[in-house]
């Protein structure tokens, strides 16, 4: 795939196209491909750098995070009240977060869509309406069920525990083709088997004439007479990582797809901040439990994620099998010195399993010092209850699977050795601030609404405030969905792109007026 690398450009750039797409992740790549296929001239501007997928195999985890992730993977959501600080992982590279996901694919649950189409008044957001878009994306992204043979021993042990407790586990679906089970999905697939959009969508967009520019930081959307006309920004300097040479791209349609953390920042920097921009952020707080077994587990040997359980979906919990490379797991181990080393040495005998909260907490994205946003999140009382319920369930699964010790996601806590200890802890939990929590699905900071007073974008993806300015990423989702968000983001982006293509002549007339 040919990429124009902004860091190699030595003079300012100015150009005009039909459509400019800001961001090359799951949302932006779909829009770019679709509109390029429709015969429109398209340019994609990506702040991050481009790395050919074959390079991922040579990346260590720290190199991958430093190169492919925002804030080198150290991004945080600051907890307000009795809320943990959460690490928030988001991509900053050509392909965006799709390069860093585990590839897990879910459709938006029917009950969530029912809520959107009834209570929120988004009448077209129904399972029937969205099904064709999901079908198409699933086909193009090679979404397949993870075979049981790809399960790691870590996952098998938790599945055995679940069987003992009568909790059904199901095989996940992921966008893979030829997965070899290296458990390294979070660092760019070393085998090119994960169909991230830099492999699946952007080459197609490029083949249809789209131009993809990396290292291009968009700083402002130019709005004239209530209509988006252009974007302005600067290319990143390859040595310092700071913005340098300026560019401007004029377009008849501007599509923002920077993700839930940066779309609101760009809107605000462009003077387009309504009261809803940056609010309503949901994070799907996630946590994991470790379990020490007598047998050797080698949990990295198998697919990083292969099973899940929706048995507790009514309680706002999804259980998801997870494992990753030793250095990342060791980073969360308790202790110092000999004690920590002892924990790491036991890693071949450790299994892990995770859970994710279908949250109704409230987060916010704000401009702060520098280019990265300040993200705050206040966990609701209900979500705290879900969190401790999840910790209890995962601990029970581990003991039922034969674990000798269970490591809970509580900073500074010693491992527990019996279900009775677990139940006592969950009955009287410590401060939630001490819980190790992560987020991989920030959503909803520029949410879709049926009424201009309730959100940022229309059901078509166009902003209520500005003509010809669209948002097509996870920020438009009007509520938490309780499942991994890559596939939903892509399906909704496809729907938005089809709408833009169908109405393009109208948008062109508005732009010319």
């Amino acid at each position, binding site marked *: 795939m040919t990429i124009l690398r902004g860091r190699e450009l030595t003079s300012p750039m100015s150009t005009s196209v039909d459509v400019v797409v800001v961001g090359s992740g799951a949302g932006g790549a779909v829009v770019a491909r679709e509109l390029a296929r429709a015969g429109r001239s398209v340019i994609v501007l990506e702040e991050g*750098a481009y790395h050919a997928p074959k390079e991922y195999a040579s990346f*260590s*985890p*720290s*190199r991958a*995070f*430093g*190169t492919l992730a925002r*804030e*080198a993977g*150290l*991004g945080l959501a600051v907890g307000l009240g009795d809320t943990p*600080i959460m690490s928030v992982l988001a991509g900053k590279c050509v392909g965006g977060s799709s390069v860093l996901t585990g590839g897990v694919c879910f459709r938006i649950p029917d009950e969530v869509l029912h809520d959107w189409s009834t209570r929120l008044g988004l009448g077209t957001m129904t399972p029937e309406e969205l099904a064709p878009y999901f079908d198409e994306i699933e086909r193009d992204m090679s979404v397949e069920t993870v*075979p*049981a*043979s*790809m*399960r*790691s021993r870590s996952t*098998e042990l938790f*599945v055995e525990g679940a069987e003992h407790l009568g909790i059904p586990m199901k*095989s996940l679906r992921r966008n893979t083709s030829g997965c*070899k*089970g*290296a458990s*390294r999905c979070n660092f760019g697939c*070393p085998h090119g088997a994960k169909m991230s959009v830099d492999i699946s969508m952007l080459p197609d967009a490029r083949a249809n004439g789209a131009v993809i520019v990396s290292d291009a930081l968009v700083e402002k959307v130019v709005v004239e007479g209530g209509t988006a006309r252009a974007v302005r920004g600067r290319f990143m300097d*390859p*040595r*310092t*990582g700071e913005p340098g040479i300026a560019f401007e791209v004029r377009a008849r349609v501007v599509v923002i797809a920077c993700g839930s953390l940066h779309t609101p920042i760009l809107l605000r920097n462009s003077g387009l901040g309504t009261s809803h921009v940056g609010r309503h952020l949901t994070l799907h707080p996630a946590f994991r439990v470790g379990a020490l077994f007598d047998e050797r587990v*080698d949990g*990295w*040997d*198998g697919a990083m994620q292969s099973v899940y359980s929706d048995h507790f979906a009514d309680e706002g919990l999804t259980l998801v099998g997870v494992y990753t*490379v*030793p*250095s*990342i797991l*060791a*980073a*969360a181990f308790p*202790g*110092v*010195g*000999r*004690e*920590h*080393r002892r924990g*790491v*040495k036991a890693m*071949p005998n450790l299994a892990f399993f995770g859970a994710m909260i279908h949250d109704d907490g409230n987060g916010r994205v704000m401009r*702060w*010092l*520098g280019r*990265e946003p300040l993200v705050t999140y206040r966990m609701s009382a209900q979500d705290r209850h879900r969190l401790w319920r999840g910790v209890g369930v995962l601990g029970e699964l581990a003991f039922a699977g034969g674990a000798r010790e269970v490591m809970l996601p509580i*900073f*500074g806590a010693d491992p527990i050795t019996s279900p009775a200890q677990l139940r006592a802890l969950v009955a009287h939990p410590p401060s939630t*601030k*001490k819980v190790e929590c992560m987020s991989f699905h920030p959503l909803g900071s520029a949410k879709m609404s049926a009424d201009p007073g309730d959100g940022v974008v229309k059901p078509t993806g166009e902003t209520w405030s500005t003509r010809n300015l669209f948002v097509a990423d996870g920020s438009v989702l009007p509520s938490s969905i309780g499942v991994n968000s890559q596939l939903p983001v892509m399906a909704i982006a496809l729907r938005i792109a089809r709408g833009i293509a169908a109405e393009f002549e109208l948008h062109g007339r508005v732009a010319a007026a």
Partner: protein
Amino acid sequence: MTASPLPFLSSFPERSTLTRRDRIVLRAVAEAMFSQDAEVDESRLDAHVEHVDRFISNASRPLRAGLRLALFVVRLAPVLLFFRMRMLESLSVDERVTVLTRLERSRFAELSLAFIGWRAVMTMVFYEHPAELEALGYASERKVYKRHLALVPAAAPVPMPIPIAIPMVGAAVAVAVAPPPEESGVRLRDDADEDSAHPPAVHAHDRDEVA
């Protein structure tokens, strides 16, 4: 355990975050974390500090400033927790371990997070060293499906490749050889698999492994 070259090309080679003083503190923390019994070579600890600096230098300026502030809190831990007028780096290794353990378990979450954040970064970098991964038995390629295969006698017949007939234009029939399936032998748990009464197949390419 000695240092070995760790290829780590920073995305932005001109960026650096840690001052000389920061590096001294970080090295003192690294020694307490990973070399309480002097099991790690001095040069590797030095390289580790450099590696950590390059890694965090990919983050934004405010985040890097926050990390430096957190490191200052760690440095002050003997004062904050034990009222000893000494900085962390001036303590013996065992004293540092005691202070950091207390810091980790502090009831003030903000204090403990200053150390836990640094521990996470340092641990991630430290344990991706090839020697550490090797000691854990980590393999970046999957091998368990071979380990779980049933043993077969050395004299067992080698399964023959399965011929497949492919109709071709301009020729009667072409015969291709189907490649053996890549996966086999692991315990299957899906319903469809559990219904199967057949034992796991052993494929030609696995024979060397089980032998």
